[in-house]
């Protein structure tokens, strides 16, 4: 589909997208639990977190995922970058606790993971961050599948079992076609496809497609569970090509919502408002005009455009401080669910 200034994948009618405002994330993991409860409480999925929240700077989940390759060599999308599959030790094993023995049978032992002392797990480095007192810093980075416009996982599968849905660009693994070869796992640079050793298939975030289709018992359209359950309501969900919607405005118009690691060349459809933090302090406790979160670090995550994005947000914020009006600030503070979750396509698109 031809669009004026942004790209939708070939063969896809509309692209669903999400914007996460990192300034609102408190690291409570409610999104993680919402997703886990809904999708990955089955056998073989214990170690999976389709939605995870990791502390940055940090090693992430799975550990050091940014060093494991995948994605495309260039924006021509003709040659893929080799990738590797993380080991279970990098994801972290699902720990077993003997609640039964300790609480019901009175066994005299400490409640601790069975089978030895674990050495890594999701959120192992929670809140560690970087920097030294009084200028230490960290922020939280929630991550789901990016439902990319150029998904290297789709290209990696030799069986065409991974595909991008025509109606909304959601990337799915056909569980009947998948034979568990895991080329998608190694091909995804975000490591957001997981292997289920019980079903012998690979699995991933489905963008809660039954919810956004209104296929639940109440037949109402709901945002994905991670967004719906978010305590601070930091996520906006809608369609990138809904030019009247907040996602389009944040991503395309104001260019303040950025994809994670654009250099992987997969063109993610999950975007982040980059985080601000209070300025640094001097030894004596005075505020000094130095970014607490180094711009260079944010550039590593979000690319060069992060400078303009942060500058734009700062300018718009100052405009409001001076008593002016800023559409951008209104969007970022909107508490109207109808605007935050624009998922009903009726009347939005001519073809729906």
């Amino acid at each position, binding site marked *: 589909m031809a669009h004026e200034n942004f790209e939708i994948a070939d063969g896809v009618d509309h692209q669903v997208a999400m914007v996460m405002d990192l300034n609102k994330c408190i690291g409570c993991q409610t999104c993680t639990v919402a997703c886990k409860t809904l999708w990955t409480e089955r056998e073989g999925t214990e170690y999976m977190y389709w939605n995870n929240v990791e502390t940055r700077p940090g090693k992430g989940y799975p550990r050091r995922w940014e060093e494991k390759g995948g994605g495309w060599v260039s924006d021509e999308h003709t040659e893929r970058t*080799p990738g*590797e*599959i*993380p*080991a*279970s030790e990098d*994801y972290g094993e699902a720990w077993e606790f003997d609640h039964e023995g300790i609480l019901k049978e009175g066994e005299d032992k400490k409640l601790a993971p069975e089978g030895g002392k674990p050495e890594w797990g999701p959120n192992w480095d929670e809140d560690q961050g970087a920097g030294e007192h009084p200028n230490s810093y960290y922020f939280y980075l929630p991550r789901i599948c990016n439902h990319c416009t150029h998904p290297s996982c789709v290209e990696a599968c*030799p*069986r*065409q079992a991974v595909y991008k849905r025509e109606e909304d660009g959601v990337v799915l693994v056909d569980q009947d076609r998948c*034979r568990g*070869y*895991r*080329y998608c*796992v*190694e091909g995804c640079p975000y490591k957001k496809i*997981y*292997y289920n*050793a019980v079903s*012998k298939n690979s699995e991933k975030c489905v963008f809660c497609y039954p919810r956004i289709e209104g296929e639940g018992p109440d037949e109402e359209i709901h945002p994905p569970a991670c967004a719906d359950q978010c305590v601070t309501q930091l996520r906006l969900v809608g369609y990138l090509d809904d030019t009247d919607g907040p996602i389009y405005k944040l991503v395309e118009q104001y260019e303040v919502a950025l994809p994670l690691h654009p250099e992987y060349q997969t063109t993610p459809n999950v975007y982040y408002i980059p985080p601000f933090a209070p300025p640094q302090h001097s030894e004596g406790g005075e505020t000094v005009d130095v970014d607490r979160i180094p711009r260079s670090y944010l550039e590593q995550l979000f690319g060069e455009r992060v400078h303009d994005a942060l500058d734009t947000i700062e300018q718009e914020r100052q405009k409001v401080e001076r008593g002016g009006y800023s559409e951008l600030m209104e969007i970022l503070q909107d508490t109207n669910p109808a605007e935050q979750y624009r998922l009903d396509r009726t009347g939005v698109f001519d073809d729906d």
Partner: protein
Amino acid sequence: MTERTTWTFVGFAAILVVASAAIPALVDARPAREVPAPTVEGNLSGANADGWAEAPAAEVPLSAAPSGLPNAESVNTRSVEVQAARADGDVFVRLQWQDTEASRNASNPNAFLDGAAVQIPVDTSEQPAIAMGSQSNLVNVWYWTADGDTEELLAGGQGSTTAFENETVRTWASYDDGEDTWSVVFNREAEPDGDNRTAITGEDDLDVAFAVWDGANDERSGQKAVSEWYYLPVGPDDGGTPFASILWALAGIAIVAVVVLTAQGIRRARSEGDGRL
């Protein structure tokens, strides 16, 4: 040339004719790419069952399948020893190959299983494309993995593998730690029910190809060691391929002709020499 010399040449020629016919049979009792499939009385239902002593083995070289997948050229298995046998309306195939490590567990996301497969055409009268057949010429694949799973698959080209709903293939497998060797037996009825299942009726020889995956080398999917097409001589003529017999007969005739012509030439030369003296 004397009468005696002539008879010596004729005798020599006769020996050559006999030898040209007999030596190939003695040196290479089996046409190239044949895997013998005798009818066996003993028990074949087991990786090391007694009946396998009755079935001659064929050494089948393997090489990397040209799948285009990452690391496709990296395969560890260079050859597989293949035996085949028939018994009571069933077909059995045993594969044995060297593997220094048995990979039986793929519970870690980055661990892969050892595996092996036997591929046969659905239509036994026509040899399909070696790489999983084609849409117009399907193949059956009997697929074993070292966690004990067996699948009976249908394929019509790369990436099209589909499992039959009710599999009719059984396997037995064993790994010999001392010899670092897998032994896997595949068994299926020769003529099972079901659409697109190869019926081994005896009307044709059976084309067959083999594949081995080394899980420790992350081999899976098209990253595998594969053979060319071989065949089980289960058709009406078990005597070898016709073209081989024709070629050997032609070679025998040629040798005789050369010997006779040479003998005549020598005799003529000598008689002319005698005349001059």
